[in-house]
C-alpha cells in the first residue's frame, strides 16, 4: 500500500478505531517509512496542541440561571397552549351556534303549515300588480260609458 493510502488510516490508528488487519499493515509500514513516521509525529503534536484548548467550567450561577430559564420556557409553553385551547372551544361554540341557527331557519322554511293571514299576505304580494291594474281600470271613464250603453234602451224609451 502506498504512503498516501497508509496515511489516510493514521488518524484512525491513533484513535484505536482501525481494524486489526489494517492496523498491523500500517504499523509495519511505519516501522520502515521515515516520511510516514514524520507525518504521524506532526499529527500527534497538533492533536496535543488541540488538547490544550482550555475552556471555562460552568459558573456557580449556572444551575440557578438554568432553573430560571426553564421556568420561563414552561410558562411560555403554557401560554402558547392557552390561546389554542380558547380558540378550539371558541371555534366549537361558534360552529354549534351556527348549526342551531341554520336548523331553526330550515324549520321555519320547510316546517309546519303557515297561518291563513300569512297566506293572504303572500297572495296579495304576489298579485300586487294585478290589483293595482284593477283599481285603475275600475276608475276609468269608459266604465261610466259602459253603464250608459248598457242602459241605452231604457234611456231611449224614457225620451220617446
Amino acid at each position, binding site marked *: 500500500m502506498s504512503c498516501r493510502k497508509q496515511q489516510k488510516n493514521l488518524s484512525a490508528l491513533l484513535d484505536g478505531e482501525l481494524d486489526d488487519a489494517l492496523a498491523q499493515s500500517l504499523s509495519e509500514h511505519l516501522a520502515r517509512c521515515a516520511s510516514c513516521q514524520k507525518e504521524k509525529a506532526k499529527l500527534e503534536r497538533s492533536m496535543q496542541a488541540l488538547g490544550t*484548548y482550555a475552556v*471555562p467550567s460552568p459558573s456557580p450561577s449556572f444551575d440557578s440561571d438554568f432553573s430560571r430559564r426553564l421556568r420561563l420556557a414552561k410558562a411560555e409553553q403554557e401560554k402558547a397552549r392557552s390561546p389554542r385551547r380558547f380558540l378550539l372551544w371558541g371555534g366549537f361554540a361558534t360552529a354549534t351556534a351556527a348549526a342551531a341557527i341554520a336548523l331553526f331557519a330550515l324549520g321555519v322554511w320547510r316546517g309546519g303549515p303557515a297561518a291563513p293571514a300569512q297566506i293572504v299576505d303572500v297572495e296579495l304580494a304576489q298579485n300586487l300588480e294585478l290589483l293595482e291594474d284593477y283599481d285603475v281600470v275600475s276608475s276609468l271613464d269608459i266604465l261610466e260609458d259602459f253603464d250608459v250603453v248598457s242602459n241605452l234602451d231604457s234611456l231611449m224609451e224614457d225620451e220617446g
Partner: protein
Amino acid sequence: MINAMTPVEQVELEMPDEDVRLMLAFQAGDEECFNQLFQKYKGPIVAFACRFSGRPSVAEELAQEIFVKCYMAAPKYQPSARFSSWLFRIARNHCLNEIRRQDYRNPTQSFDETWQGAGNENPETHAHGIQIQKAVMHALAELPEKQRTALLLNRFHAMPYESIAETMDTSLSAVKSLINRAKKTMTKRLDGVLESGDEL
C-alpha cells in the same frame, strides 16, 4: 410464562446505559433523574458550546438553552441510541442554528478574557502558549462544521466513531473520513506555530 418488565428494566437488560435509565425515569415523572443528567453533562455541554461557537461569553447561555430543549423534548425521547448521542445532537443543532442566526465570526474576540495559562511559566512561554491557543481556536473555527463537530466529539468528549455517527446521523466511514480530514487540516494550519515553539 409472561415476564412482565417495566420499560426501565427492559432497557437495563437490552442497553446497559445508566443515562438511558435516568432519562426513562424522568419521562415517567422523576425530576430528580433529569437533575442527575444535568449535573453530569453540564460541564461537557458548556465546553462543547464554547469550542463549537468559539465564544466563551455565550457558551453558558447556549448550554442552558440546550438543556431546556432537552427537558422539553424528553417526552419524545426514544431509547434507541445512547443518551449522550441524543443530547449532543441537540447541542450541535442548537449551536449551529445560533451561529447561523448571529455573528459568531472572529472567535478570538473574547479569548483574552478567558485565557489564564498555567500561571507559573516564563513570559516567553506564556506568550507562546497564547499564540498556540489562538491558532488552535482559529484553525478550529475555520473547519467546515461537520469536521469540527466530529473532531470535537472525538478529542474532547472521548466519543467512539460509532457514537459520533449516531450523533451526526451519518455513517461510520463518513465519520472516519471527517475526522481524518479535520486532523490533516488542523496539522497543516498549526504546523508553523508549533515549529516556532520548538525553537523557544
